[in-house]
């Protein structure tokens, strides 16, 4: 059980380190910082629009279910 726990943790840390390393490498190129700077607000915009449409669908479904 304990070995499984450590095995899982080591994989998790390797993956996390990999992601962290990728972010560092990505930001090392200065142009990527500007690119990311431009894309983040656009991603934020689409995430909110998606959230809005999904929450509206869920709400309408709940209303539909409660009406029965």
């Amino acid at each position, binding site marked *: 059980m304990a070995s499984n726990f450590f095995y899982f943790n080591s994989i998790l840390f390797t993956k996390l380190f990999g992601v962290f390393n990728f972010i560092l490498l990505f930001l090392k190129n200065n*142009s990527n*910082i*500007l690119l990311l700077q431009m894309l983040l607000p656009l991603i*934020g915009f689409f995430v*909110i629009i998606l959230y809005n449409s999904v929450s509206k669908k869920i709400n309408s479904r709940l209303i539909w279910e409660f009406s029965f």
Partner: protein
Amino acid sequence: MVLSCLLVFYYNESSSIFQFGFEIDWDSYFNIHLSFGLDGISSLLILLTNYLILICILLSWSTISFRLTTHLAYFFLLQFFLILSFSVLDLMWFYVFFEGVLIPMFLLVGIWGSRARKIKATYQLFIYTVFGSLLLLFTIIYLYVTCGTTDIRSLYLIELPFETELVLWLALFISFSIKTPMFPFHVWLPEAHVEASTTGSVILAGILLKLGTYGMFRFLVPLFPFATKFFSIFVYVLCILAIIYISYTILSQVDLKKIIAYSSIVHMSFIILGLFSFNYYGIEGAILMMLNHGLVAGGLFILIGILYKRFHTRILLYYSSLVSYIPLFSIFFFLFILFNIGFPGTGGFISELLIFSSIEFLNPSILIFMFFGYLLSVIYSIWLYNRICFGSSNFSYISLFIDLKEDELSYLLSLSVLVFLMGVFPNYLCKLCSNSIFTFCLQFYI
């Protein structure tokens, strides 16, 4: 916000070329490329954009009562278009993003505006800006047909006939002066401010007005240097008229937001005078004032928003003796009034000092009018504070007074600290944009 801090941190001050650049080949047949890059000025404006958008998003939680998520979405869209406008190096694409800013702004004022006249104000904002954009489009098409490119780095090297320069300069100047706004194209701004929500006003005064002056700095002056020299007297006259006439207009206003909106027009005229001073220090002062005004006008609109939220009126006549009821608010209002005047130790002082000294070098007679305008701005600022915070109490109909809350205090405190830092350590900001200003001066004026 973190990324924009990284942009400023990684920016190489010793280099005068555009940094962080990348290019997307959009249409090689028509020779139009989507190229991006930053210099010291645009990286500072992006930092200001992100900071004010962050404050507006946090502020929305307490000020926006309906459709909050949609409101946030429009703010993200606005941020996207603003960052692209400040970093794009192609005139055609600048036009697209410059116009793109209008879409979320139109919706922000139109949907979340405070009164019934918001629709009229929105259409006024839209029609004025679109009229200016048509002139900008005309200039872009002409430049593209004659030069075969809209990349500004190539356009900087091309010399046009003097008569053509004059016509194109006028078209571009009207377009940017509507956005700035400059007298006599300023009518839309007070209306839009009065009808917009607090967050809308913060963004409008803090960043959107800077798009016009940024356009002048990046496109108008470098593309048409001879026409700029030719029309400089005309610009000085317009700016001085704006400073004096609008300062007098402020003294007769009763709406708090209108007072700050008109005061923004006066500050923008000072910025344009600095830009057209053909002097290193004048341009440096104009850039510092752009940053300082973004923070100060933002703070003042937040303070007025707080008053409106508490008492549901912005009419000056209903307020007096606030210092006895909400002392913390009065302290911050006093601080921001001092920032607006350009009190020593604040960012406004340094920028005004640089602009005034460069104008003295250029033409001392303009300086006399500027001093008169400055005196008027001190008078209306102190008069406004005195009218709101002192005098006999007439709050017989209000029993509950709530001073600043923790969140409001934190926004105002962060803005005040930044303005103080700009005043005490302006050297860092000056160093950051010194090389781009120097190249700008060297290339076009000497």
